[in-house]
Every structure is written in structure tokens, then in C-alpha cells.
């Protein structure tokens, strides 16, 4: 497979997952601002912006939901907002049009076409619902129509790395805002994990268990460990014959951070949650870079020099 195509596939996976996760995160963020009469809007919005690596307005400006939505939901020119990610996913699909299935292309293209009519600031919840549904359609089509070859492995690899990264960011918002921030129930809900969690622990929710669920659960598909395992499986499928001594660099980053979470007492991880989650994000970024270096080498910039050789 062409490196350029593989790179597009990888980013289709990442961008669709990013749109999905950001929609979940914002939906719950708004819900808590609405349903909790004591929520401190400015603080909650600032912590969300900083976790998403967005510039924070100066301290004398009150940050509200509008600012957050503009930056993370409706900005079509930034690939780290929902709209921008959907635009970017479609753009990548357009460049890999010949390898992806027609169904996948059409669903991404339809999403892009429908985007303007769904961006209605008066009803953000409807927008988020739509985004999640579109992401589910794309995910379903990927799983149902694509051979489990490199095509699938690159898309799911992108999706898994992005998911681990976003779940880590989500957990950081909890740690950052302290007691004034979103409760664990809220975080679980934003990952679609609340009901799965309740059934696993029979409703005896404690902070420790909720954090443990999102960090370590081996069966829940949005937990960090699950996503990292999936990424590892994809990498292994891409490079099944490993050298006897050398482990692929991307797998090393992923494996290291995963075992660091899995084989330490949960309480230690929780004590330093922002730092630990930063490690996960850095490992995801490093793994992503390693994948890029290994599979998508950029061509050296070439320029046409005309006749003057």
C-alpha cells in the first residue's frame, strides 16, 4: 500500500474518533453546566480548553459555553474541533478514494455535506447526537465492509490511538477542576460508559472504581487500556514478523505506558492523575510519530527547477 494512502487511512480513523469523542465530551460538559446549579462555568470551561490544548482567554474575561463551543464544536478550520475534524476526515477520504469502500466514502462525504445544516448553536445537543451517530455509522461501515488487511489496520490504529489520547484528556479535566469539576458519573457518561460501569459494579460507584474503569477495564472499548491494546494489535498485524530483539518503536511507546498503568497500584496512578494522563497523551503522540516515521515517510520537499539543470 502506498504510504500516502496509509497515512490518509490512519487519519480518517483519528479524525472521526476525535469528532465523536469531542462531541461526547462537550455534550456532557454542557449537561453538567445545565443540570448542576453550582457548577463554576468559567473554571470548568477554562480547564476544558487547556486540556484540549486551546489558548485560554485572559483572566479578566469570563469564559462561557459559547467560547468553548465556538472553539471545539463549530470551528471548521481547526482539525481539533468537531467540524474541523469531520472536514479533515472527508478530505483524507477523498485522497484515498480508490482504496476505501464506496459506502465508507459516501458516509464521510454525506457527513461533510450535512455538516452546515447541523451546526445550530441554539441546540448543541442535537448536533452532538448527530455527530455521534455519524461516527457510529462510519465505524460500523469500517467494521463491516473493509477486509482485515492493512487498510483496516491503519484506520483502526488511528482510531485507537486517538481514543486513548482523548480518554486521557477527559480524565485530566476531572483531575484539573478538582471538586468543582465534572463528577465521575459525568465522565463515565461522556464515554458512554456509565451504564456499562453500573452493570459491572452494581452501582456502588466510588471515584476509585470509576477511574479504574476508564483507565484499566479490559472489556470496555473506550477505556485507555482497551484502546492501547487494540492499537498494539493493529501494529502487530502490520508487522507480524518481529525481529528477535527489537520491538517496533510505536509498540514500545504504547506497551510502556500501558504496562505502567496496568501493573501499578491504582491509587498511585490516581494520586498523580494529571501527570499520568499527560504520559498517556505523550505516548500516543510519540507512537503516532513513530508510525509516521515508519510507514509514512514524507518525501523530501521537491521543487521544479525548470530547464536550468
Amino acid at each position, binding site marked *: 500500500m502506498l504510504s500516502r494512502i496509509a497515512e490518509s487511512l490512519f*487519519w480518517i480513523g483519528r479524525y472521526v474518533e476525535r469528532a465523536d469523542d469531542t462531541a461526547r465530551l462537550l455534550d456532557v460538559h454542557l449537561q453538567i453546566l445545565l*443540570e448542576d*446549579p453550582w457548577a463554576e462555568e468559567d473554571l470548568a470551561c477554562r480547564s476544558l480548553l487547556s*486540556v484540549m490544548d486551546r489558548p485560554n482567554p485572559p483572566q479578566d474575561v469570563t469564559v462561557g*459555553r459559547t467560547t468553548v463551543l465556538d472553539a471545539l464544536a463549530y470551528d471548521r*478550520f481547526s482539525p481539533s474541533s468537531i467540524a474541523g475534524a469531520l472536514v479533515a476526515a472527508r478530505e483524507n477520504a477523498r485522497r484515498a478514494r480508490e482504496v476505501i469502500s464506496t459506502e465508507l466514502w459516501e458516509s464521510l462525504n454525506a457527513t461533510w455535506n450535512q455538516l452546515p445544516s447541523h451546526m445550530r448553536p441554539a441546540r448543541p445537543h442535537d448536533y452532538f447526537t448527530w455527530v455521534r451517530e455519524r461516527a457510529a455509522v462510519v465505524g460500523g461501515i469500517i467494521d463491516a465492509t473493509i477486509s482485515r488487511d492493512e487498510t483496516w489496520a491503519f484506520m483502526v490504529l488511528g482510531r485507537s490511538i486517538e481514543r486513548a489520547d482523548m480518554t486521557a484528556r477527559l480524565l485530566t479535566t476531572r483531575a484539573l477542576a*478538582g471538586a*468543582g469539576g465534572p463528577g465521575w458519573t459525568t465522565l463515565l457518561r461522556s464515554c458512554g460508559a456509565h451504564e456499562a460501569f453500573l452493570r459491572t459494579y452494581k452501582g456502588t460507584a466510588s471515584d476509585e472504581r470509576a477511574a479504574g474503569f476508564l483507565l484499566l477495564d479490559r472489556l470496555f472499548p473506550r477505556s485507555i487500556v482497551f484502546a492501547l491494546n487494540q492499537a498494539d494489535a493493529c501494529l502487530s498485524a502490520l508487522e507480524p514478523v518481529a525481529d528477535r530483539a527489537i520491538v517496533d518503536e510505536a509498540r514500545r511507546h504504547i506497551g510502556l505506558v500501558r504496562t505502567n498503568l496496568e501493573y501499578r497500584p491504582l491509587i498511585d496512578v490516581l494520586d498523580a492523575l*494529571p501527570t499520568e494522563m499527560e504520559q498517556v497523551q505523550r505516548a500516543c503522540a510519540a507512537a503516532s510519530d513513530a508510525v509516521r516515521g515508519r510507514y509514512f515517510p514524507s518525501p523530501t520537499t521537491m521543487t521544479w527547477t525548470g530547464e536550468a539543470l
Partner: protein
Amino acid sequence: MADLFDDYPAGIAWDEMLEPGAGPRTAYRQVHAALAQLSAGELRARADALARSYLTQGVTFDFAGEERPFPLDVVPRVVASDEWEHVAPGVAQRVRALEAFLADVYGPQNAVADGVLPRSVIVSSTHYHRAVRGLTPPNGVRVHVSGIDLVRDSLDGWRVLEDNVRVPSGVSYVLSNRRAMAQTFPELFAALRIRPVVDYPRRLLAALMAAAPAGVDDPTVVVLTPGVFNSAYFEHSLLARTMGVELVEGRDLFCAQGRVWMRTTQGRRRVDVIYRRVDDEFLDPVTFRADSLLGSPGLITCARNGTVTLANAVGNGVADDKLVYTYVPDLIRYYLGEEPVLANVDTWRLEEPDALEEVLDRLDELVVKPVDGSGGKGLVVGPAASRAELATLRTRLVDDPRGWIAQPVVQLSTVPTLVEDGLRPRHTDLRPFAVNDGTDVWVLPGGLTRVALPEGRLVVNSSQGGGSKDTWVLGGTPPRRSGATMPQVHPVPVGNAVPIDASPQDIRAHVMQQQQTLERASDEGERTC
């Protein structure tokens, strides 16, 4: 644009939102202002969004065998903070008194000995079950969940209309109403401090676990439903889902070796606490109705052995018998040594000959209710009844005075409600829910406001075609919170594709192109080597 409240008729009954000639009352000021800004079309659009949300969620009520979306009105019912500080303790007080009464009824019956109420009232109640005499629940709680129906008829007039301590339903609508309203009217939630209701399932589960038999460390709690055909099935599944416990039917359970078990893929599993949403009589064919398959044979024996807890306890119906209701203020004084916070609606006990005579004389102006009914069944509103209906009723009262009570027609307060013609006053009541975990009676802020949709109608039960409103209790003390400062964070950049593909510039250009429907400039030149 016509004001939505333009020809709002005032003065039929006490209106919660609008004071005739003086505009909106304090608690409703922001809601009124927000609604008044909306055009009729916009309000209808929001109402449609609410209805759609309910269809999607499957928030339905079974009405005469048909699954219908439960009507939720767009105008919330607002309760001021200080008002709630009066209502909530009143509800909790009532629950404590009813708990004490039930413990007494199925125990020593001191209240009878001390002459607070006649023994005949207890033993003649349809829901008094000798089968559970002497059965003491593990943590003493019988009323794990209660719904105390309140009405108000004037500025200072919250009154208790009836107590529901058997299987009170409706709390699921409180939870789903709130979710749907927050999504439909985000601007109102942003402007008001509305006390949250999401805590209910956690409180309920904690109370159920606290009621587990002694010595069970990690109790298995289940919700027992009669099945999908029950009118409140939506509620049963919602409670099981939000508590993360199994929703079982009678056929999933069996009793063996003195315990209750459920059939699972992993073999049988012990059940410790059953939050049952099945009426007493259908729980156990061994003890009660032999023809019932809704429960499980032997349940009552297991409860008696103390190996399983039934919540709410069997036999609670004696405490919400409408004749016992007339004694509740006395019971509060007797058991708690307190004055009742919330008053009853005036009620005639037809067993008393003078009362019966007076009621028979004034039948056309009173409301007459069967003492063991629920859901508005069998109730007769005098002024609305025909001559023939009243004559039949007269005979029945004379034949069975114990079976009935009579009350004056209470002009339930009205709240503006969206109907065909626009916003119109419709009668409402309020059912606050209380959860007793054995150490504390917790009252859910708000409760289910039911609204009678047909004009002038006073019966608000959902089984009688009623709808509901979200109930907003304002303000309150914020929970203690520490650490409102933001710790240092080192943002990790959100990864993006390398610039050769889908760079922000590319995307910007692309979007511009989409907007202008222009051909994208060929990028072949850039790629040429």
C-alpha cells in the same frame, strides 16, 4: 407578535405563575420572561422537540394496552426555595410517622391501646395482611420509597392529598423530564439555579443495600417487574438500568433452601433485596392469590425467614388506606411528638353516622373516593356527576361506609400549559418522592408534577389521560467544595496530520471552495517533480 399570555384567563383557580393584575410571581419571573420572548411558533417547535425526544427515548405509558409517549408540557412548574424548605421536611415527617405506624401495626399496636385510632380501622383495611405480622425488616424500614401527593389551593396552601407507600410510581418521569427539558431549554437552565435530581437512583440503591439481610456483605439487589405489559414498565427498566441491577420477572426467580435465587447463565444466583413493583396480592401464590404468576411461590416465607428483603414491605397498604389518612396528623403527634408540618385536606369519615348523613346531603358538591383505590380509580367528583351516578353512589355509601371517604372539591392550583389554543391554566398536583435508608429520609428536590390536560379537569392521574411537567426547585445551599483553583497543566498538542495532507490551509481553501462552489485550483503543479 402576539404575547403567548395575551388572553390567558385568570381566576379559575389559584394560578402558580400569574397573579391576576400583577403579572408573574417572583419564583416564575425568569421563566415567564423567557416564555414571553418566544413566538407561538418557536414554543410549538420546542414542544415538538420535547415530544420527539420522548419518542426516541421510549418514555411511554401504557394506556389501555397501547404504548403512548407520556405527555410532557413545555412550561415547568417552579417551586421557590423557601417553599421547598417547608414542603420537604413536611414530607419527611410524614414518612417517619408512617414508618412508626407500620412498625406498630405489625407489632404491638400501641396506638390502638392508647386510643389514637380504633383497631377496627386497621383490621378492616383491605391491605392489612396478617401474614406479615411480627415480620421485622432487617433495618426496620418498610417504606423504602414513598410518594406523598400534595396539592395547593392558595398562597399558603400546600396540603397532603394522599400517601402512597406501596409501590408509588412516576419517579422515572422526573428523571427523564429533567434530561429532556435541559436539552430543550438550555437558556433557562443557564439563568436559574435548579436543584438537580440525578441523585435519585444512587440514593435508592443505597437504601436498598442498607436494607439487606444481616450478614450479607455484598447484597444482590434486583427490581421485580410484572413485565413489559405493565403500565409502568418504562419506569422499572429505567430504575434497574440506572442502578445497574437486574430487572427480573417472577419466572426468573425461585425459592429453594429457604432463600430466593435467580436463574442466570452462570447457574443460580442468590438474591438479597427485591425492589418489587408488583402488588402484595400477586407476590406469592402460596400466601396470597393462588392464580398469580407475577411473583414467586415462597417469597413471603423467605422474607419471614429473613433471607430476603422485600421493598417496599408487604402490608404497607394499611398506611395509605384513605381512612387511615384521616388519622395521620394524630399519628404524627403520637409517634413523633411533633405538630404536622403539612395539613391534610378536610375529610369526612363516613363510618361516623353524623358525617355520613352530612355527606349524603351534600353529595353533589363533594369528592368521594374509595379508601383502597389508587390512580383515581372509582373516584366520583360530585359537581361533575350525573343524577343517576349520584344515586348509585348513595346506595354504595350506605352499604359500605368503611369503603369510602369524602372531601370537599379542592380547587387545585393551575399552571400555564401549552394546549391547542396556546397557554391555558391547567390543574396540577405534586408528588414528591422520599427515600428512607434507615437513618435518613431523603426527599428528592421537586417530584412529579402531574397536570390534567382537559380543561377544568381535576383528576391528574396518568391513567386518566394526564400529562406532566418538570418540577424546578430553585436555589439552595451549594455543597461544600474545595480546591476551586486550577492545578498546573502541561497541554499536550492534539495531533494533526502532517502538512502535506489536509493541513488547516488546505481545509480552509477547501471549505471556501465548497462555499463558493468553485473548482478547486489544480494542485498538480505542486506535485510535479
